[in-house]
């Protein structure tokens, strides 16, 4: 089965994986810092849960973009 996949398709797959993987790492790095601070703030004042959550998940759009790009790239292979 492996023989059926050409080099071009393989490169596309790697590209898609990189798009998703790297953006996921970026999101993780960003959310780490914000999440720490948000939990700290919540420990002081519990009502901050809503605001804390919003701020924490803002970088998540990075990985969503990564996902969308990955799907678009995979579309090239089809």
């Amino acid at each position: 089965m492996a023989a059926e996949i050409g080099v071009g398709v393989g490169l596309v797959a790697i590209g898609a994986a990189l798009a998703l993987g790297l953006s996921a790492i970026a999101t993780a790095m960003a959310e780490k810092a914000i999440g720490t601070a948000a939990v700290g703030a919540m420990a002081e004042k519990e009502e901050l849960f809503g605001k804390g959550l919003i701020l924490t998940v803002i970088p998540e759009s990075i990985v969503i973009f990564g996902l969308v790009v990955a799907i678009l790239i995979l579309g090239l292979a089809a």
Partner: protein
Amino acid sequence: MIKPKNMVKLSVFGPKSYMKKVIETMYNMNVVHIDDHTKKSEEDFFDIGAPFKENEQFADTLVKIRSIISNLNINKGIVKKSATSIPVIDKKTQEVYEKVNYLLKKQEYFSQIKKLYDKTEIQKSLNSLKIDIDDNVDYSNFTHYVGYIDQDSDLLKEQIEKITKKYIMHSVNYQGLTLVGLFVDKKKKDKIKDLLKESDFSPIDNPVLKEKYDLKSSAGIKFVKLNKELETVTNDLKKVENRIQEVKDEHTTFLLESEKLLSIESEKAEAPLRFASTKNTFLVKGWVPKKNSKKLEKEIKNVTNKKVHIEFHGPVKGDNVPIAFNHPKIVEPFEAFMNLYSLPSYKEIDPTFFMFLTFPLFFGFMLGDVGYGIVIFALFSMLKKKMPGAKNFLNTFIIAAVVSIVFGMVFGEYFGYEAFSQTVGERLQLTTQPWVLETFHMHPFESHGHTVFPFPHIFARSHNINDLLSLAILFGIVHVLIGYIIGFVNILKAHGLKMAILEKVGWILLFPTVIYLLTDFLGVVTGFVKDLLVPLIPPMPFMIGLAVLGVLMIIKGEGAQGAVELPALISNILSYARLMAVGLASLSLAVVVNDLAGEMFASGIVGIFSGILILVLGHTINIALGILSPFLHSLRLHYVEFFTKFFKGGGKKFISFGQLK
């Protein structure tokens, strides 16, 4: 449904002699939110009221009951209030309180001693006790006792002196325990023994003593080996613990019911603290739901012979009106999400109803598996019985699980399985009506050299990833658009039509452009969703014109901040792609587990067992993820993408006077 209950401001003013009746009436009706009176300056005409005198007694007993409840680790369940009269409760509480305190003290004593029963510890404690051996005394006439007592040493001294004057006693406080070394007249041995028994004398055993002192005479209480002594203490401790358990079993209902009654009475007795008062009058300010106001007025006038003045006003600008949700029963669970985030302010649209519509929809769309849906449904129905306190929160999951089951049928997914086995599939092809096969897409297809007979479904998400993505984005477009429309209504009510148009219509005008970008330009949205959306795009120049107009309005309405946020519109909508991603991830994990187990099953008897293990373990993990992930992501889509379009929040909760009932 999308508005909190209408409130009116209440003022009750009257002579103090009627205060009790007014409090009683308000408490029983349970519809008033009292605004506590605060004395802002010395010139304020009104003082804070003083609580009723009987409150002291209530509070005293209440503190005792609560301390017993917490000391005995009694779980607070839902109980009715006690029907016993308060003086009887006071008396009984005092008895139980003393008994429990005595037992707890004993328990502490024995467990302390138990902790010390280790040779080095005993030696250490013995070293702290200075026993001076006086050479002039003939110790053969004495019996000695060395050990711990659960009593004050001075008190013991007094008691011994009543029996005999011929004694020598040394004592020291060691780690909270009283350690005594006692030498008494041999003739009085029996009496002393009884006395020591009363104070739970726990002797230090002979071998240890012998190492340190050369005490010739034998002790009155037979010393035993170290382990034996420890056993006795353990038994004593056990006895005390059993006794505590008995007391707990006997009095739990009494304690909980009395606690409830007294909490209610004490809240009523303390109510004047929240009122404004002068020497002879009182004034209550607060809020009442409009529909209850007439009845409240009537009741108060009835019990006070119209001697009390009552006034109602509508809320004016700047009032911090408390929020009482106004929902049908099925929407109520979702109030929990508002409490978690922030309550809407009084003038705002209450988004709980919209959450009720879309939260389960998103959750179900992500989870979308009949098997998992049923498991979650059963799990949370069970939890609901176990934890009635979290009922509301658990109900949201139950509703979401039902939607998951529906989506599972649409997707044709059952624990990650999507197709019949070869034999069943072939038979079904022959026996099923052709129109059923047609409607539910049950026609077999070739995949990796196998013929697959899919379960009945309407839309197979694993084979139509692009359509699934497009559908998710479509949800996003609609959801965000609804957000802006609600925002329009909110601003219309708060700041008028002009601001509403500038701030929200501007964003709505951008939507054709956004749809164009997502479909033709980026190509994220494809397939049937694209066909659905493309007719909505106006001709190019017109679309650009709308967009430019929209941007100008946003800048006028929201300033530079609005301009900076322009790209966020696209990213907000793309964020709904998670509806597809989370769902597919959960499906993929299930498929992997099933495939692994399937291979195991084929490899003999050992394989079958490990296959079952993998199935159970894998699906358990996946269900746990399937609860957490869709829940968080669905919640986030509401809090972040949806609420930011219209929600201000900051309302305070309506807490009615009398809720304890």
